[in-house]
């Protein structure tokens, strides 16, 4: 897997972008993210991403954009640019072991073991 510097902006990752299908916005594609990472942009846009690996399948230079976005999120957390939702989710995981927070008994409908 290659780092984002190898991205040649060919746009072939557009074919697997579910967010592009939903919104029509290039900014939400893997190429959009690569452009922003190359420019060292820190923005909440990096939280709007399913982080699926299908984009890698069609990347001619094998850029692992999902990993790059993960790293960017780490950097944003370090710099205090976390989203409220993300912070709450992590607090919930630490405190209750689930991203949803403390569930009331009646909310637990199925238990898998």
């Amino acid at each position, binding site marked *: 897997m290659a780092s984002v510097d*190898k991205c*040649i*902006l*060919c*746009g*072939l990752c*557009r*074919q697997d972008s579910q967010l*592009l299908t939903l919104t*029509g*916005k*290039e*900014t939400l594609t893997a*190429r*959009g993210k690569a*452009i*922003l990472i190359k*420019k060292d*942009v820190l*923005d909440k*846009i990096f939280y709007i991403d399913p982080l699926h690996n299908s984009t890698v399948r*069609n990347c*001619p*230079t*094998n850029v692992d954009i999902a990993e790059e976005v993960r790293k960017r999120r780490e950097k944003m957390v370090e710099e205090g640019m976390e989203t409220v939702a993300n912070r709450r989710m992590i607090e919930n995981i630490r405190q209750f072991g689930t991203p949803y927070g403390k569930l009331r008994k009646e909310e637990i409908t199925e238990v898998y073991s």
Partner: protein
Amino acid sequence: MNLWFEKLVGKENISSDVVDCEVYSTDGSQIRGTTHNVLWVNTAQEVHQIVLYAKRNKMDLVPRGAGTSLVGGTVPFNSLVIDFTKMDRFTIKDDRVIAEPGVVLDHLNSCLRDKFFPIIPENSAVCTIGGMCGINATGIYERKYGRMSDWVEDVEMIDGTGKLRTYGNEVLGTEGIIGVITKVTLKLAEIVIERSMDIFKCETIEEVVDKLAHVQFHKHILAIEFISLRAATLCGLETKYYLVLEYDGLEGDIKDYDEIQRIRAIRKNVFRRLAEKGFVYREDASFSLDRLGELLSWLEHKGIPSFGSVGSGYLFPCFDERKDIREFYGYIKEIRGAIGKVFGYGILKKEFVPDELKEKLTLMKREHDPHEILNMGKVI
């Protein structure tokens, strides 16, 4: 300004946000420009109003499909970028398709049953009809089906004066400098049911040239694809020159559908393999077939891998450094070849626009976009 656009296209379809502008400031060419605003359009009426606005306010407009141009065809210079991704509807009527510019070619072909649109570029999975019209695209089957202009019946376009008119295929290849396409009527071809292939592995360039001379006038040939020795080696294939012939009939020795698909996939993945090895800059050279031997010798001598539709007179050499490309351009001029006939001219290859074409485009630009509001700095 933003308020006016918000009323026109809706708040969610306009952005001057620095993040969006950054992303839309470049394309497959990796050239960087600057974006003033991005607009995602849904209808021809919206496009019309935007063109009229740009004309009134003397703003540059850049129409953008998938943004895969390798020559900077959609790079803005403080421009309004119109993204056509959402204008992707089409209607099928007998052997015609009326398509909006944002239709993706593979998606269109997957919706057709016994017909297909035969101009299939390598990036057909993402390229849009609007972009293909812009550069009068060609595809792997050019030998049989020609170019985009052979399969476009008419084009609905809003020119730089704001007039919405229907044109013939004479506006194809104008790279968005005279008007913004809003609808295209495409002709469809009968699907080819019986296909077969032959693969020739050649030891020398002379053998390639001889073989090509022998097969090129075969009437059932759909495509003659070539992979150079250097490219084959880098791709992990046998160290030979490859000629892959595809027929619309059962002339070839390879008739098994799965095997044909496997060979096609190998051929389609050549650029991917080369890019993995660092040969990421792809060029397009066209030449007369009697100069093929010379060109191949030169490329192999320099260690430049190449592949392409030699049957149509195109070759795509791949480079690992941009600085090596200049020398290649010089050589192509020397052998009276041409650059830009496949990928278009955009910003990067303006110097290769033939005089005749430049003159024609300049006249068209003067007539259709006298205020110079469309795709500034491209082609002419």
